[in-house]
C-alpha cells in the first residue's frame, strides 16, 4: 500500500498543528462555534447527540495491520472500546472529547492516517472497489489513481468551501462494487481499443433528499488528464452550484437544472485552459505511486485447493461460510475473504477493540498484513491462500466475524441513526437488530438468497436506502418515529432507485412488513431468481397489495427496554461534552 514520503508527513504534521491551534482558539473563545464548526468538520469532527464523533479517513478503504491496531488503541484510549465502519469505508469514533482531538490526530499520523476532509463541503475521502488489485474481473487497478486523486484533493485551496459535500468513487472492474452511480463523480477505469487506460466519468449521482443516478459526462478521459478534467467539473460546480438552499446545493441539482449537455459544455470550456497543462499526470508520478500497489509475492499454487473442497463437503458450517464470505481471486490458489461485521445483535459495521486487534493479527497471519473496509460495512482480507481458509474460518468464528451472511438478508447496511446522530428522525440500529433477530435462521436466509436491505434514519440516506433491494427510511411524524419501506432499489451495474410501497409503519410493525415482502417473493419467484429480479419482473404492486391486505400488528416482543426510543444519553453514561463548548 502507499507509504508517506517526507512531503506527506510534513503536510500532515502541519495540518495537525493548524487544527490544534484552532481548537485552542475555540476553547479560549477566540473563535465562535459558527466559525469553528466548519474548521472542525474539515478535520472529521462532528458534534453528535452525546459527544463529538471523529470520522477517520481510510483512503480507498485500505488499512495496514498497524493502522488497524492504532484504531483499536484509539478506541481504548479515547473512546469506548469500539469503532464503527461506515458506508464510505471510513471509521467513526462516537465518544470523543474535543480536548483529545489533536492528540488522536497525532496518533493517527504516526501510522500515516488522518481525518482530513471527512466532513464539510469539500472533496471527501475517495472510495474504491474493496477487491481492487485482486478481483478476477478487474481491468485496471484503480488504487494508484485513487491515491493520486487523494493528494490532489487534499487541502485543494479552491475547493474547501464548495456549495455542499463532494464524493468521488472509483472502480476498475467490470462489476461495479463501488456504487459509482450514486456519487457526485463516479469513475470507472477502462481500456480503449488501443489498450490505453482512461476513465468513464459519471457526474451528478447521489442519494439524500433527491436521489439521482449519475449521468455519463465523458466516456473516455485518458488517465493523464483525469486531474484536470475532474478539476474542471468541480470548478464549474463551485461557480454555478446553488448556495441559497442547502437541500438543492449538491452537484446533481445543478446537472439536472442546466442539463448534462450544457454542464458538459461548461466543463470542457474550462478544461481547454488546463488540458495538457502542468497538472497533467506524468508517467513518472503514476509509476511512483503504482509501485506501492504491485501486490505481494504470491506463491505458485494450484487453481483450487483440494483440502478446501474436501472440508466443504463434510462441514456444512464451513461450506456455508465459503459459499457466502469467500470471493474469487485473480491468482490461482488464493481467495479474498469477507469478515462479517453483521453478526445479529451487533450494530452493523461496529467492531470492538478486541476484534480490531484480532483482525490485524489475522491480516498478518493470513493476508500479507493488509485489510480493506467495504462500503457494505464489512472487512476484507484480500490475499488469503485457499489452504488457510479453514484455519482462518476457525479464528474468525471465535471473534464473531465469520457470520456466513455476506450478500444475504442480515448483511444490512445501516447508518448510526437516532441513537447517535443529531440529524436522524428515527433509530436504525435497534431496528436492524430486530430484523436480524427475526430472520436469524441461516437456512431461511440462504433460501432467500442474495438480497440487500439498507436502512437510513433520515432522508440524508447514509444507509443508502434508495439503492437497497429493500430500503427502510426513518421518518418523523409529529415527533414519533415511523419507517417508510421501498423495494426495487439496487447498486452496481444495474443501479436503480427503490419505490416506496405505501404509508409508513411503526418500529414494531416493520419486521413483519419485511416478512410479508419475503413471502410474496417466495410465492412468486422462479427457481434461482433473486429478490430484485422478481421485483423487476412482477412490479411492486403484488408486494404492496399483500403487505397492506390485512392489518400489521405490532410485534410485542419489540417493546423491551433495548428497543425503546431512548432520550439522548439515557442509555449511556453522562455525555462527554467538552467543557466550555
Amino acid at each position, binding site marked *: 500500500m502507499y507509504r508517506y*514520503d*517526507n*512531503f506527506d508527513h*510534513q*503536510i500532515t504534521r*502541519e*495540518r495537525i*498543528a*493548524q487544527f490544534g491551534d*484552532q481548537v485552542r482558539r475555540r476553547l479560549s473563545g*477566540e473563535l465562535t462555534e459558527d*466559525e469553528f464548526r*466548519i*474548521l472542525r468538520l474539515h478535520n472529521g469532527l462532528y458534534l453528535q447527540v452525546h459527544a463529538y464523533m471523529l470520522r477517520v479517513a481510510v483512503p480507498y478503504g485500505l488499512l495496514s495491520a498497524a493502522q488497524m491496531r492504532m484504531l483499536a488503541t484509539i478506541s481504548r484510549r479515547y473512546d469506548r472500546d469500539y469503532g464503527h465502519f461506515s458506508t464510505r469505508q471510513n471509521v467513526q469514533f462516537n465518544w470523543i472529547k474535543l480536548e483529545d482531538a489533536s492528540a488522536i490526530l497525532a496518533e493517527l499520523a504516526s501510522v500515516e492516517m488522518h481525518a482530513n476532509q471527512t466532513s464539510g*463541503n469539500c472533496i471527501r475521502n475517495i472510495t474504491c472497489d474493496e477487491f481492487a488489485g485482486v478481483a478476477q474481473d478487474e481491468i485496471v487497478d484503480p488504487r494508484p489513481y485513487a491515491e493520486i486523486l487523494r*493528494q*490532489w484533493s*487534499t*487541502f*485543494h*485551496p*479552491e*475547493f*474547501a*468551501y*464548495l*456549495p455542499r459535500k463532494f464524493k468521488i468513487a472509483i472502480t476498475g472492474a467490470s462489476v461495479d462494487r463501488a456504487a459509482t452511480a450514486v456519487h457526485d463523480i463516479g469513475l470507472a477505469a477502462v481500456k480503449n481499443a488501443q489498450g490505453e487506460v482512461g476513465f468513464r466519468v459519471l457526474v451528478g449521482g447521489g442519494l439524500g433528499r433527491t436521489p439521482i443516478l449519475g449521468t455519463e459526462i465523458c466516456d473516455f478521459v485518458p488517465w493523464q488528464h483525469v*486531474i484536470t478534467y475532474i478539476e474542471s467539473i468541480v*470548478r464549474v460546480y*463551485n*461557480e454555478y452550484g446553488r*448556495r441559497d438552499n442547502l437541500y438543492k446545493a449538491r452537484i446533481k441539482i445543478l446537472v439536472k437544472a442546466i442539463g448534462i449537455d450544457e454542464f458538459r459544455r461548461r466543463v470542457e470550456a474550462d478544461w481547454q*485552459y488546463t488540458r495538457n497543462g*502542468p*497538472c497533467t*499526470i*506524468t508517467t*513518472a*508520478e503514476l509509476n*511512483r505511486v503504482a509501485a506501492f500497489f504491485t501486490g505481494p509475492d504470491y506463491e505458485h499454487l494450484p487453481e483450487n485447493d483440494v483440502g478446501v473442497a474436501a472440508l466443504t463437503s463434510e462441514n456444512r458450517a464451513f461450506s456455508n461460510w465459503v459459499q457466502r464470505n469467500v470471493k474469487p481471486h485473480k491468482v490461482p490458489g488464493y481467495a479474498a475473504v469477507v469478515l462479517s461485521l453483521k453478526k445479529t445483535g451487533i450494530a452493523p459495521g461496529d467492531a470492538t477493540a478486541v476484534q480490531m486487534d484480532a483482525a490485524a493479527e489475522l491480516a498478518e497471519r493470513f493476508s500479507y498484513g493488509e485489510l480493506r473496509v467495504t462500503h457494505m460495512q464489512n472487512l476484507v482480507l484480500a490475499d488469503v491462500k485457499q489452504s488457510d481458509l479453514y484455519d482462518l474460518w476457525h479464528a474468525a468464528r471465535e471473534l464473531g466475524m465469520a457470520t456466513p451472511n455476506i450478500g444475504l438478508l442480515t448483511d444490512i447496511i445501516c447508518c448510526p441513526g437516532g441513537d447517535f446522530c443529531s440529524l436522524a428522525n428515527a433509530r436504525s440500529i435497534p431496528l436492524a437488530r430486530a430484523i436480524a433477530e427475526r430472520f436469524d435462521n441461516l437456512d431461511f436466509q440462504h433460501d432467500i438468497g442474495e438480497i440487500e436491505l439498507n436502512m437510513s434514519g433520515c432522508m440524508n440516506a447514509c444507509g443508502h436506502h434508495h439503492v437497497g433491494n429493500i430500503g427502510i427510511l426513518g421518518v418523523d411524524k409529529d415527533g414519533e418515529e415511523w419507517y417508510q419501506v421501498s423495494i426495487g432499489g439496487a447498486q452496481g451495474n444495474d443501479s436503480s432507485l427503490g419505490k416506496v410501497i405505501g404509508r409508513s409503519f411503526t418500529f414494531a410493525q416493520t419486521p413483519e412488513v419485511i416478512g410479508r415482502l419475503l413471502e410474496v417473493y417466495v410465492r412468486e419467484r422462479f427457481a434461482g431468481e433473486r429478490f430484485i429480479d422478481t421485483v423487476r419482473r412482477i412490479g411492486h404492486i403484488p408486494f404492496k397489495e399483500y403487505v397492506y391486505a390485512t392489518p400489521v400488528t405490532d410485534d410485542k416482543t419489540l417493546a423491551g427496554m433495548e428497543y425503546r426510543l431512548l432520550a439522548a444519553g439515557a442509555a449511556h453514561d453522562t455525555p462527554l461534552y467538552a467543557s466550555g463548548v
Partner: protein
Amino acid sequence: MIIKNKTIAADDWSVLRLEENDTPHDVVVPEGKIIVPLKVWQAQRNVLQARTELGVWLASDERAEDLKSDLARFSVIAVDFPRFADGRGYTIARHLRVRLGYAGELRAIGDVLRDQMFYLQRVGFDAFVPRSDKDIGGALKGLNDFSFTYQASSDERLPLFRRVQRGSGI
C-alpha cells in the same frame, strides 16, 4: 490596516457598497482611492475611466470574465466574501490570475478570517482585509500554515509531483 505582501500595512483605499436605495447609475462615487462595485463600474465607466486611481470589486456571484478587457484600468481588484463559507471567490481569484493573467493587486474583502488565509493566498490574493473585529496579527500568521502543497494553483503553477523529487527527503 491590511495585510499586503505578507506584512501588516497602512491602507487608504475605501470600499463603496451600495445602500438599499442606491442604484449603480445614480450612486455618487466619492473622490480619492475608492473600490467600486462591478455594477457601478459598468454603469458609470464613461466618467470613472478618467480617474487615475480606481479599484473595482466583484461580488461572489459575479464573473471574473466581466473585467476581461478592463484589467489594466484598475489599481486594485477586490473580491468580496459575504460569508467565509462562500467559496466562489476562490474560483474568481484563480480565473483572474490564471485564465486572465491579472498581475496587479488582488484583495480579499468581507468575511475574511485567519483560517482561510492560506487558501486565499494560494488562489492568488496578495492583499487581505481581515474582519475588523479580529486580530490582524493572527490573520497574518495564517499565511504560513503549510510549507508544502500538493496541487498547482495561482501561487504554484506546478503540482508537487513536478516541483520536487517525490518519495525522498525534503
